[in-house]
């Protein structure tokens, strides 16, 4: 293994650890909310996780469109990596939202437009990942998942604007509120730090997953092109030497 390969493998882990620690320290040192108390700290992970889901699915759409245009497998791997990370962070956002909702709303789940559409977005991208597993043919897999990746992104604006289009229990956008953030300045700054740290974590995870996807593709191609044993190879000619 060369030193360049070693750096490529290790640096994302360091970046993820530093950014994660950064978010943890920032979210634990800011003052708690007057009304919600310590429970408000969930927001510093919940909101960045939801933001990353949007970003990740947007990148999946862009990479899918680029694959359809360029037919370059690097774009296909970027789309896959981003979709997987997006699904992970969507699950995190839903899970943390439920943990916050139980003491605040009194229920784990409510039939709110934002919650329902987010869970639907989660299943749409699970379908995208399942679609990628239906074939080992790289060309077929890349083309079909790229078309679905472009179509699926329609969920993202639906989720984001659901709190504006419908009367929901979920609060309106926190940072992207048209009338400005309705929060204390210290909390806004902490939230922005958390969002920035999560974005750095996303970039680091992308590098790791793309690297892994490239290796997976190489193994797949090697398996498909390797010459296996020929039929009848195990059958040996009978001994026909004299006297046998």
């Amino acid at each position: 293994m060369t030193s360049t390969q070693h750096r490529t493998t290790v640096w994302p882990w360091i970046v993820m650890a530093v950014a994660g620690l950064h978010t943890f320290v920032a979210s634990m040192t800011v003052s708690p909310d007057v009304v919600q108390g310590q429970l408000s700290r969930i927001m510093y992970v919940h909101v960045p996780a939801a933001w990353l889901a949007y970003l990740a699915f947007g990148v999946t759409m862009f990479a899918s469109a680029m694959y359809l245009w360029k037919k370059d497998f690097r774009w296909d791997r970027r789309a896959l990596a981003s979709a997987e990370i997006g699904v992970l962070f969507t699950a995190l956002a839903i899970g943390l939202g439920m943990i916050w909702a139980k003491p605040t709303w009194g229920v784990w789940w409510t039939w709110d437009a934002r919650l329902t559409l987010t869970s639907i977005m989660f299943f749409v991208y699970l379908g995208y990942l399942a679609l990628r597993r239906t074939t080992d043919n790289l060309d077929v897999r890349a083309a079909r998942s790229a078309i679905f990746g472009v179509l699926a992104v329609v969920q993202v604006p639906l989720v984001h604007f659901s709190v504006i289009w419908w009367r929901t229990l979920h609060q309106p956008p926190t940072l992207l509120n048209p009338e400005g953030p309705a929060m204390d300045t210290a909390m806004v700054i902490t939230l922005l730090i958390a969002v920035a740290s999560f974005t750095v974590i996303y970039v680091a995870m992308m590098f790791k997953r793309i690297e892994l996807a490239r290796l997976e593709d190489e193994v797949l191609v090697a398996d498909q092109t390797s010459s296996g044993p020929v039929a009848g190879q195990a059958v040996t000619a009978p001994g026909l030497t004299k006297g046998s």
Partner: protein
Amino acid sequence: MTDAGATPGFFAQVMTIVRRDLLRERRSGEVLWVTLPFGAIALLLVPLAIGTDAPTLQRIGPGMFWVIVMLFGVLIAIRQTSAETQAQRDMVALTGLDPAAIFVGRSTASFLLLVVFQTVLGAVTIVLYNVTPTGWAVLPVVLLLAASGLALLGTLAASIVSTGRSATALVPLLVAPLSVPLLLGATQALEAIRLGRSSLVWVLLMATVGLLLAVAGILSARPLQETA
């Protein structure tokens, strides 16, 4: 007199595919004798599970109808995925038919079957749940838009996974979440009529979704056929 070797026009190609799909359905009876009774049984089972309180059933009846249509309608829209072999797909591709015409033809055949499916299940819902239909001017439009949207979505999803492993299991997973705008549009349009409000925005939502699906299906038809 026409040239025997001339390529038929787009519409003629569409009609060829529609006739083929409907002929296949007439021979197999998959929708009429399997999916339709299955949907009716589902409508029959719900009251057994949640109780037979008449006002409750009357209230949930329309919603149950749409849920059954969306979930079981997917089976109608994807039936060609399980019915067609790779050799048959190759044969259709070799005929030189326009892939977009194949997509439109399949969607149209599914649309017609879904209209029949909806009509029969609608009658079953009215009888079993004692539902009184309202909005006779908008109801047919909503039914037609729901059928066309589901047909386009199912045909597109079936094209995307047509040759993959576990294709028939995967298509419902792809279609069900993406059919939410259609389900919302259909239920909310009829709810708006019941409350004496305008249902235009929901009808427009369904029409827009249908249009987007048609454009996506036609544009992706050739790339999908080339990778089949």
